[in-house]
């Protein structure tokens, strides 16, 4: 969280504190949704994901802030795949809940654009 806050220029001292109520910046959800949520997509060999892609759009809904010590259960789903001729659009939703209570924490929805020609 500290490295993320520094890499993205979040200046609130609560993101980089050594102790106390250490909070995650809103954008930090990228680290456990886009990167780790996307890992399931790469692991699915039948899906055919490849690196000739760009990130089209990204949405986050925050139900409560993320804190140091949280244990989240994040479930990725493919919402949609649309063929647009020279590209395919894949929408990946990741529902992140508090692992202990099941309470929703963050919902992520991202659209990835895969170009047909592999690198």
């Amino acid at each position, binding site marked *: 969280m500290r490295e993320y806050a520094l890499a*993205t220029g979040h200046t*609130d001292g609560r993101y980089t504190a050594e102790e106390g109520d250490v909070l995650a910046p809103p954008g930090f959800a*990228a680290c456990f949704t886009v*990167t780790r949520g996307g890992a399931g997509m790469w692991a699915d060999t039948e899906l055919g994901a490849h*690196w000739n892609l760009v*990130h*089209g759009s990204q949405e986050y809904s925050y139900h409560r802030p993320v804190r140091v010590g949280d244990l989240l259960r994040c479930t990725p789903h493919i919402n949609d795949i649309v063929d647009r001729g020279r590209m395919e659009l894949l929408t990946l939703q990741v529902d992140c809940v508090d692992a202990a209570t099941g309470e929703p924490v963050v919902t992520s929805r991202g659209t990835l654009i895969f170009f047909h020609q592999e690198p």
Partner: protein
Amino acid sequence: MPRFDDMTVGDRIPERTETLDQARLIRYAGASGDFNPLHWDPEFAGKVSPTGGVIAHGMLNMGIVSAVVADWAGDPGKVLRLTASFRAACPVGAAVTYGGEVIELDAEARTATLAVWAELDGGGKVVDRRSSRAIVRLD
């Protein structure tokens, strides 16, 4: 900290301009775990990049938008929603300006909807203000 009763549609939050050099992209890759070679390998990027070279992570630009919005709101818990529509590619080394403008106020929910953006010097819409939003709860 901004207050709902002081807000007017058209108000802007403080802008920030940052130069995204290669070191910054590597730092973001390490922090986020996104090691797509498009963001650090010129040879690979030369084959697939829309600019023919290394480009910044869309999520780094969204992350800096998050910083501009959350630092203004004063508390990450006040940011209820953040969306980014990535349009123009952002070449490594580019100077990018980040900002936001209040476009809607909900008196009942006491929330402000902001159009947010990340734009290149030449006007390239890296995070496109026409379809990128932040919803912030205000006191």
